[in-house]
């Protein structure tokens, strides 16, 4: 199974995007994370790392070898850098998708329900959202 993390400067935006993606996600773990930890706009590496670990199944016991890989969706600027730091800190195999956060999260959720899904296939599908036309 591949886990998904949604990172936004706004905690509520991360939660809302995760809510939309979860409709398509079956049993996939989707962890929203955002905000500066003091009720404001921003992101914190430690919180993103915790979300990655949770999406990897780290909260369900077992050692590092049992962790699922994780695809991380991010919004803008410093959120990308903080997610990058969190990916380095985490014991789980995590990778950032270069994709729009909402569309990418929905695509990733659908891709993750495929029984043969891998971290690469989920990231690729998330990144395919860059080419989605709306009109």
């Amino acid at each position, binding site marked *: 199974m591949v886990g998904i993390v949604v990172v936004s400067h706004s905690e509520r935006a991360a939660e809302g995007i995760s809510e939309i993606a979860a409709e398509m996600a079956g049993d996939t773990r989707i962890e929203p994370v955002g905000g*500066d*930890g003091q009720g404001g706009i*921003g992101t*914190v*590496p*430690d919180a993103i790392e915790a979300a990655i670990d949770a999406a990897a199944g780290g909260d369900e016991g077992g050692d590092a070898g049992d962790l699922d890989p994780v695809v991380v969706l991010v919004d803008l*600027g*410093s959120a990308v*850098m*903080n997610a*990058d*730091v969190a990916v*380095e800190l985490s014991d789980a195999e995590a990778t950032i998708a270069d994709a729009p956060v909402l569309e990418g999260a929905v695509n990733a959720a659908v891709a993750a329900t495929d029984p043969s899904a891998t971290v690469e296939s989920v990231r690729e599908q998330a990144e395919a959202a860059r080419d989605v036309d709306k009109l």
Partner: protein
Amino acid sequence: MTEDGAAAVAAVAAVAERIEAERDHLTELDSAIGDADHGGNMARGWAAAAEAARDLDDPDTGTVAKTVGKTLMSEVGGASGPLFGGSLVFAAAELDGGVDAETAVAFAETYLEKVEDRGDARVGDQTMVDALTPAVHTFKKSIETDDLPPIEALAKAVDAAERGVAFTVPIRARKGRASYLGWRSVGHQDPGATSTLFILEELLAVAADRLGVDAPETDATSPTIPDEDPDEGASEDD
């Protein structure tokens, strides 16, 4: 506490004090081209870092650097958190075997590399990289090629950083929030490059103080950095 560790704790305290003193200055620079939070964010982060460093029990320099980096990462916010803090955590590993001229160069190079990678910025983008790159290159050259004592190498690095900060003024921002301004970013001094210079100045001041020497004056006499006006010097020889 090791002598190095005590010096590192003192350096962090000096940086925190300096950044606090420059808070309004940094905010003013940032308000011209960004979101006016650099002074407040850095002051808050370095105050927390100084406290965290002070609370360490008998640390070596690597531990101080790691602790300061982690604290900055969680307290500074914005892009400065991962850039200043994340890079410091990473580079701190170079100091695990102790601090000497060789590990100091390795630390500086790793720090620069991490800032460049994380921020995807290069010289000329109007970022802290414009101050950091000449400082690190000058430090390395002064140690490895000119065989200077580390304190003199650091003084030259500070001098190089100062010129790097000046270089950010007449160029266009290519990274960070200032890049959204396009050509309107030209003519503004980069806040991150400026705070990088302040940090280096404090490291030099504390190192000189610990060694019981005056911080070396290097401006315009440096073999690595030419006179401001080389033509003037040349005409005297004629």
